[in-house]
C-alpha cells in the first residue's frame, strides 16, 4: 500500500506564505507529478511529505495514518534528489547498502569490528547482498558497484541514486527534479526508463518537476501548482485539453498557448479580430481571453471571415514540425502557429500568411483568468 493524503497543508517561512491550504489525495501505485514554475512551493510540499520540513498547519497521512509527528526516517519513503546526494566517500555498493544496513542491523551490529560477533548479522548481510544485487541488475549498474560516485557519469549517478531509493522497497518514492542535471538526450531517455520502472514496481511515485513535458509524458495524474496554490489536479490529457485557468493553460504545453483578446456580446457570441466563434459563451457582455493552442491554428491560402492574416517574424524548424511566430495585423500580440513541413516549407521570414483556426478547440477565460464554458445550446 502507498496512499498519501495531504489535508489543508499550509506552510510559511516567517511572513512569506509558501503553500496555501493544499489538499491532495495520492492513490496507491500512482505516478503523480507536482509541476509548476520554480518557486511555486512544489519542492517544499515534497519535503513536507518526506518529513524533512514541518508544515505550519494541516495533516499528512500515509496509508491513512497521521504522520505529522513521525520522523523522516520512519515514514518508509525513499527520496531521489536533484543532485543525487550520493555519499561521496563510499563505493556504489556501500551507497546502496546504507539504507538497508540502517534498517536491518541493530545498534550493536552496526558497531565496527565487535558488531561482527552478533549471530544474526551474517544472515542479515546475506539478505542485504541479495537485495543490492537484485536492484543493481534491474538498473544495469552491476559493473559499477566497486566505483566511487566521483568516477561515474551523470546518468550512472542517476541510476545509483534510484537504486539507493529502490533497495528498501519503500511505500512510495519521492523525486525532486531527478532529471534536471542530465543532458537533453539522456533526460528524454530516462523519462521512458522511469515510466517503465514505475510500471514494473507498481509503487506510488511522487515526482516534482518544473518541466511540463516530463509531467505530460510520465504521470498518471499531474498537479499544477502556481504561487503556493494547487490550480488543477487531473490526468495530463485533461489538464492539457481542459485547463481550469489561464495560468494553467499558459504553463502547460510547449510552445505556449496563444491568447487573443476578444469579447462576448449580450447574446454570448464571442468574437476576436475579425473571427466569430460558432459556440456561445456562458458569460455575456464581457471581455474575454481566447486561448488557442499552436496546433489548432493552420496556415491557409483561403481568405474569408474565418481567417486572419499576419507576417512571419521567425520560423522555428523542428524537422517534424515548423513553428511560425507571426505578428498579427492589429499589432496586439505575437502568436505561434504550427505548420507541417510538407505544406509550409516555402514560407520564409517576412512573408504574409493567412491563418485559419480548427473549430471547437478554443478555450475561453474571463478577466480574472478563470475558465469560461461554452453553452451547450
Amino acid at each position, binding site marked *: 500500500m502507498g496512499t498519501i493524503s495531504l489535508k489543508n497543508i499550509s506552510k510559511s517561512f516567517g511572513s512569506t506564505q509558501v503553500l496555501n491550504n493544499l489538499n491532495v489525495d495520492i492513490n496507491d501505485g500512482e505516478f503523480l507529478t507536482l509541476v509548476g514554475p520554480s518557486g511555486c512551493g512544489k519542492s517544499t510540499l515534497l*519535503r513536507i511529505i*518526506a518529513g*524533512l520540513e514541518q508544515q505550519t498547519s494541516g495533516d499528512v497521512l500515509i496509508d491513512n495514518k497521521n504522520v505529522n509527528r513521525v*520522523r*523522516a*526516517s*520512519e515514514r518508509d*519513503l*525513499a*527520496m531521489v*534528489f*536533484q*543532485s*543525487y*546526494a*550520493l*555519499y*561521496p*566517500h*563510499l563505493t556504489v555498493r556501500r551507497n546502496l547498502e*546504507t*539504507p538497508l544496513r*540502517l*534498517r536491518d542491523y541493530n545498534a550493536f551490529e552496526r558497531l565496527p569490528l565487535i558488531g561482527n560477533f552478533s549471530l544474526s548479522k551474517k544472515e542479515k548481510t546475506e539478505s542485504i547482498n541479495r537485495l543490492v544485487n537484485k536492484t543493481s541488475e534491474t538498473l544495469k549498474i552491476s559493473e559499477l558497484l566497486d566505483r*566511487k*560516485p*566521483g568516477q*561515474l557519469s551523470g546518468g550512472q*549517478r542517476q541510476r545509483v541514486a534510484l537504486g*539507493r531509493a529502490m533497495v528498501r522497497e519503500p511505500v512510495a518514492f519521492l523525486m525532486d527534479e531527478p532529471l534536471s*542535471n542530465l543532458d537533453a538526450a539522456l533526460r528524454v531517455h530516462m523519462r521512458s526508463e522511469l515510466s517503465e520502472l514505475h510500471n514494473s514496481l507498481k509503487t506510488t511515485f511522487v515526482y516534482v518537476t518544473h518541466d511540463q513535458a516530463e509531467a505530460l509524458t510520465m504521470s498518471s495524474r499531474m498537479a499544477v501548482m502556481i504561487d503556493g496554490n494547487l490550480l488543477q489536479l487531473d490526468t495530463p490529457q485533461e489538464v492539457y485539453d481542459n485547463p481550469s485557468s489561464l495560468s494553467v493553460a499558459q504553463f502547460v504545453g510547449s510552445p505556449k498557448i496563444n491568447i487573443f483578446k476578444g469579447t462576448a456580446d449580450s447574446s454570448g457570441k464571442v468574437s476576436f479580430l475579425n473571427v466569430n466563434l460558432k459556440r456561445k459563451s456562458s458569460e455575456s457582455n464581457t471581455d474575454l481571453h481566447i486561448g488557442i493552442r499552436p496546433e489548432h491554428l493552420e496556415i491557409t491560402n483561403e481568405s474569408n471571415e474565418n481567417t486572419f492574416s499576419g507576417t512571419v517574424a521567425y520560423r522555428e524548424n523542428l524537422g517534424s514540425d515548423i513553428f511560425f511566430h507571426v505578428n498579427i495585423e492589429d499589432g496586439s500580440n505575437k502568436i505561434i502557429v504550427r505548420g507541417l513541413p510538407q505544406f509550409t516549407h516555402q514560407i520564409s521570414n517576412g512573408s504574409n500568411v493567412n491563418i485559419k483556426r480548427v473549430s471547437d478547440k478554443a478555450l475561453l477565460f474571463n478577466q480574472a483568468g478563470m475558465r469560461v464554458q461554452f453553452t451547450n445550446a
Partner: protein
Amino acid sequence: MEAKQYIGEGWKHAILIIGAIVVMLPFYMMVSMSLKSQQEIQSISGGLIGAQETQTFPVCVKTGYSEETCTMKPYQYNYWFAFEKAPIPRYLMNGVIVTLSIFIIQVLVALPCAYALAKLRFYGREFVFSMVLFCLLIPVHGIALPLYVMLAQAGLVDTYSALILPWTISVFGIFLMRQFFMTVPDELIDAARMDGMGEYAIVWKVMLPTAIPALLAFAIFSVVAHWNDYFWPRMVITGNRDLFTPPLGIREFRGGIDSDEFGPMMASIVTVTVPLIVAFIIAQKRFIEGITLTGMK
C-alpha cells in the same frame, strides 16, 4: 620559452631559495651540532658532521661512568648520552598521549558543534556562533592563571588531566569545521536522514568522511601546537618528571654541572622534532588528495 621569462622565473626562485635557507638554517645547525664533539661546536669547525674522532668525554666520566664506556665517536656519544641522561622515550610517549588525547577530544567536541552551527536551525544559533568567534580573540596566556587556580583547586596539578583538559574545547576547530560544513550540500544530509540516520550518525558517518581534508589541516595545527607547547606544561607539571612532555624534557639539558654540553642537548631536540616531521610527511599526501565532493553533482 624566451630568455626574458627565464630571468623572471629565476628571480622568483632566487627569492624562494633565500627564504628556504633562512628557514632551514636552524635545522641544519641542530642536526650538525647533534653529530659533532663539544670542541668542534665551540670552535665552530668541522662542517656538517665534524671529524668524528674517537675520544673520551669528560662530562660522561664526571657523571660516574667508566672511562672505557665513555670512549666513542661524538655522534654515538651525543645520542647515547641524551638517552642515558633523560628518559626521552618516556617524554615522547607523554607527548603522544597528551597531543592525541587533546586532538581526539577536540574532534569529538568540535564536529557536533560545527554541524549544529552550520546545518541545524535553532533559536540563538547566530548568537552562539558569534560567541565562538568572540572566544577566538581570547589569548591563552590571558586566562592561564585562572585556569591554573581552578585546576589546583580540583587537585589536578601534576596529572595528565591538567595537560589535556584546558585544551579539549577548541573554538578554532569549531570555527574551521563549521566553515567547511557550510559547503556540504543540504541534500546530502537530507538523503542521510531519509536513509534512516540520526543526527549523530550523520556527523560521524557522512560529515566526518567528507571533511577529512579540513580535519587534517586542523590536526596539523592542533598536534604541532600542543607537541611544541612549553608554556602550559611548565605551569601545571611542577615536579613529577614522569609527566614531562618533550619540550620540558629538553630543558633537562640546561643548567647543572654540564650546563653547556650542546651535543647531547641537540641530539635530544632532533629526537623530539623527528616524529612531527615524519607525521607531517605522512599526512601531507592525504592532505593534498583529500576527498573532493565531486561525487555530488
